[in-house]
């Protein structure tokens, strides 16, 4: 079992499969709030569903309304169960907090170098810790 430290942005604990996006995400216009599927053309997640995943992406982009779309996803049971960003910015941070999605950023090791899609991990945002099983 390996532990990687990060910085807590939104508290909570979740366990599940990793989904990696190498591109920044705009929840407004980028993710369908009813299905959780990425609809942004030419995006590395295009056609993939983020629901129930430990979603890893560099940071948010686009409209601040994106925070509200994250809350809609949560209410529709289509939200990711946890989020890891390289560097948090306000849209995703606020979205994660109001939707109660555990979130950390600034991992001591770049998550893109040691995580892969489908890998099972536990995110303990209470302790600011990613745990690999």
């Amino acid at each position, binding site marked *: 079992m390996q532990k990687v430290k990060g*910085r807590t*942005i*939104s508290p909570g604990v979740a366990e599940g499969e990793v989904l990696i996006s190498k591109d920044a995400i705009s929840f*407004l216009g980028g993710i369908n*709030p009813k299905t959780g599927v990425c609809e942004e053309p030419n995006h590395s997640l295009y056609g993939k569903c983020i629901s129930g995943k430990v979603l890893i992406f560099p940071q948010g982009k686009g*409209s*601040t*309304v994106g*925070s*509200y*779309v994250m*809350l*809609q996803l949560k*209410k529709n049971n289509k939200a990711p169960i946890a989020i890891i960003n390289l560097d*948090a*910015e*306000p*849209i995703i*941070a*606020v979205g994660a*907090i*109001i939707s109660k999605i555990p979130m950390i950023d600034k991992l001591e090791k770049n998550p893109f170098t040691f995580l892969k899609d489908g890998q099972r991990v536990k995110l303990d945002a209470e302790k600011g810790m990613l745990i690999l099983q």
Partner: protein
Amino acid sequence: MQLTQEQQKMSDGEFGEAQAQAMRILVALGKIYKAENLISISSAQVSGVSYETIGDAGLEYLQDYVKKNAKVKVLTFLNPAGMDRDQWQKMSVPAVFAKKQIQILDAFKSMGITMSCTCAPYHIGIRPKVGEHIAWAESSAVAFSNSVLGARTNREGGPSALAAAITGLTPNYGLHLDENRFADIIINVKAKPKTTADFGAMGSYLGAKLKASIPAFTNLKQVPEIKLKTLGASMAATGSTALFYIKGITPEYKVNEGAEKINFTQEELISHKKDLNIGEKPDLVTIGCPHASLEEIKEVAQFLNGKKIAHKLWVCTAKKTKELSDVQGFTKIIETAGGLVVADTCMVVSPLNQMGFKCTACNSGKAAKYLASLQKQKVVFGDIEDIILAK
């Protein structure tokens, strides 16, 4: 970030879930921007008001807060909504839109927010003083309050401004701190901007060039407040200007040693003014971005007195200003000519595209940008006298 005992209690939910949620947002932002503490604010301006911009997602978020019994702690007012609450039918706003818009406004109202939806609160007496900390969200109001009034605010987003309103607090970073309020570029104005459209074009051109830098203008004399408003609004729209200085005019003028110096010429002004003018034959002419002052409404009324216009016309303003315009008789003159004075909304956040407008005229650098990008309009740009009687 250091929280006081009281703030820690708010954060722990001792005063209810709404305050706890608002504190979590502020603490996270404080962390991201490395703020050392939270500071008290005297007022908040919340954006994300139009149903056109926030949609059902935003409406549900606000209703969620209401369920948690959220109440604001400081004077809080709103950005323009998607329609005039009293005149939406006259504006031809679709009924489905109107219903949602009213639900949004009702949610804000039950949080204790003042039902004033304006991007120019300083025209209706909301004028924080030099050094006063506030949390305002509408980008032109942010530029005006930091620059012309000397108050201190970052460019807040909808949720962060609302969290600030609910707690009366904001994280202490960015433009709240002395060290971040120095200009890094000096603009020697060789041009001779005169009209509102001139200042709009100048701001629009410079904003795109400056991005997030803080500009200090020299060589501008006796610029009235309504033109400073337009200049700031345009820079904040094409760039992310939140603070600018003008030598001899703004209450503060602080420039970094070694700041870069550039010229802004009359040729640049003329050519950019032309570049902004893309369309012809507007379906709709709009004045009041940012919201018109009573003086500006009077100017429109004087142009239109005894005339008839071929297109629709909206003069956008704050509700309080419209009431004065009604009393002064300006509204009547504008309506007789075929126009409307619309309150608490504007051309940028109303559903113009849905309403079938294709070509819209304005004299604002900010409106020119958003009418094209958000509302998919062909834009006619020019001075009031040229656009208002356009055929």
